């Protein structure tokens, strides 16, 4: 599978590395050339030597998306720092380039829900965090039992 990841922060770069290790073809687009170092960190070979692709450019630039290979992407991951950027580019991937699987990180739980209903695959880390805090606060039956 050819996977395009836009935004190589902590999440994006980790997913990129594991997807590459799992045998997928991975291309990463980030506006900051320094993000490349995150892809190399802790690896024995550089990102490119391991078979990865890296493009410097902003997510809303159609040319940058094309250069990063969006036209042949099977999956698209929007994991930049901005919810709004992620939601717009994930829709561009889906509607303009027909990428089948468009997955988008949305911090705001309310919009993650609504855009989820509109057909985007949304992932909201905030929702998971809320859930985990709530469980951590609840009377701790599981660990007591253990």
């Amino acid at each position, binding site marked *: 599978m050819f996977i395009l990841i836009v935004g190589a922060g902590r999440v994006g770069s980790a997913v990129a590395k594991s997807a590459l290790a799992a045998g997928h073809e991975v291309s990463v687009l980030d506006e900051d050339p320094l993000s490349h170092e995150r892809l190399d960190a802790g690896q024995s070979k550089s990102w490119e030597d391991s078979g990865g692709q890296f493009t410097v450019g902003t997510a*809303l*630039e*159609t040319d940058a998306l094309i250069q990063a290979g969006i036209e042949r992407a099977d999956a698209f991951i929007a994991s930049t720092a*901005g*919810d*709004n*950027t992620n*939601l*717009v580019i994930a*829709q*561009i991937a889906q*509607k*303009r380039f027909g990428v089948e699987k468009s997955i988008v990180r949305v911090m*705001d739980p*309310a*919009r993650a829900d*609504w855009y989820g209903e*509109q057909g985007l695959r949304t992932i909201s880390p905030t929702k998971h965090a809320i859930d985990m805090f709530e469980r951590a606060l609840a009377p701790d039956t599981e660990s007591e039992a253990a």
Partner: protein
Amino acid sequence: MYAIIAGAGKVGRNLARELISKDHEVTLIESSRSCYLACEEEFEHAVQYGDATELWVLERAGIQRADLVIAVTGDDEDNILVCQVAKEKYLCERVIARVNNPRNHDHFRLLGIQPAVSATDLILRLIEHEVPRYGLVHLLALEEERLEIIELEVANDAPTVGEKVSDIALPEGCLIISVLRGGSGFVPKADTVIEAGDEVLLVLDPGLEEAITAYFAPNGTPAAF
């Protein structure tokens, strides 16, 4: 009319001022605390502090009853999302978005955000209008309807000079709707004769511009832009 304006920068503030002076109800939404506080002195309860891309902020502003949502922040992503949510989630019938970077215009179109207004495009269009070449000026583009209205100046030696309107065999999909001559305009009849120096207004299907220019340009050659 009730209008919600996202972004209290220069554009947002001036729009709010104009609409309020015309007795419309307005809520300005601004996400920068310092900018909000500066606006509050002038607009009082008509400005709210918050990120207009968040649903609860829009709901607090009463988006359910808004007749018009105008997104004029400095971020194109934000403007797209505010309008998208207003239209598709809250079924607001009229939205207007500002395009900051003209290269993002396609994204607005793709996601159905119309009209999307770009200051750069407007100025470019004015430049086109002000530079008197034998080119054509786009007066209006009805994108949904797929029609355009353009203006052309008739060159001295254009092939149509001296021809009756009924004798000019224009391509399918265009029509001369008005002729401006000597400072006043009129709707041409079949026997109206086109003169050099006339400005003709045409309505046409998009994409016919170059073919049309040939009829009114010198020697039938379109001007190079």
